[in-house]
């Protein structure tokens, strides 16, 4: 469940904030579908605590090289991907998942943030 990564990160929001980071999630559905999916996995949109953005035209996921078409699931969708962007808007870390379980752990993300801070970026 891809929302699993978001649930993990939600629990580490304090640590992300302390590291100077804002978490943003991008979902490739229109709000109706995104809402239905959240409810399906037991998430309340009020209880997410970070922006969950809707990208139904796949415009942003295309720019980030994340969208692909997969006819087994019969639709256009996103591969799981995580980016860390510094205060100057430069991408400093990127992970394009090769499978749906291929995601960085919150620990990895926090370590990458610490590296950035140490490097003065």
């Amino acid at each position, binding site marked *: 469940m891809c929302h699993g990564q978001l649930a993990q990160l939600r629990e580490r929001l304090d640590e992300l904030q302390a590291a*100077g980071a804002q978490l943003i999630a991008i979902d490739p559905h229109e709000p109706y579908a995104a809402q239905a999916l959240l409810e399906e996995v037991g998430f*309340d949109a*009020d209880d997410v605590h970070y922006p969950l953005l809707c990208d139904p035209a796949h415009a942003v996921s295309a720019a980030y090289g994340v969208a692909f078409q997969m006819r087994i699931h019969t639709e256009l969708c*996103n591969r799981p991907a995580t980016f860390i962007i510094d205060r100057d808007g430069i991408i400093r870390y990127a992970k394009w998942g090769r499978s749906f379980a291929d995601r960085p752990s919150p620990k990895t993300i926090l370590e990458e943030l610490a590296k950035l801070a140490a490097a003065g970026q």
Partner: protein
Amino acid sequence: MTVARLCAVTTRTHKRRLANRILALTVTGLFAALLGSASLAHADEVPDTVAGWFDLFADDWSEQDWMTRRPGGRATYMRPLEEEGWKSRWRALQGIVALGEAAVEPLLAELASDDVDRRTLAAQALGYLAPAVPVEPLLSAAEDEEAVVRLYAVDALGMRGDPTLGDELKALLEVETNRDVKQHIGYALARGEHGVDAETVQQLLATDASQSGTAAVGQPAPEFTLGSLTGETVSLSDFRGQQYVVLVFIYGDT
């Protein structure tokens, strides 16, 4: 946010979005002019008919055998964005949708094609034009032998924003066997009177396919502005000079 509150927010913006949509479909020539891209096989071509876009799509799409095959010969059907035929398909979708209502009739004819890729593209494009699309051909396409065509057809039915289609959608749900198509029938039922958003159409038209897959470490992150589930508008640049951004893309289905 409860579903009721979400619906209230979307209803408020619905009329404005309809107005925007008409505007979006009126400036088709402008968008068509913006769709060029140097890296594609037919980059300099901007057809002004649906047939022209389908010819371009069929040409580029068949250039490469994109299906990677697993041991045992099972197709994985995964087509990444960095692949040129895919970008051509994207351009064709944009070009067709930019033609507006004039595209509807030829797209309906494509729904009868023997080629599943043509039927798929037609059903997908009809979704973006859904308010101008008659119900009957979409209901027929929702019974196509290929799940991918059924999926985009039920999306298009939902994108019409016609709550009176509830019974038809429930009848489709009764006989549907594909998990994904069932899920999308659910989305169509959930959206009720909310047709395709003008902002979604505008995002589709404004995207430059040649820029897809350009994000790279050490390079500026592609800027974006998107609406959130709780009704805010968020831009990446909001955080410039303030905070790091951890950007997570979710598939969202499974």
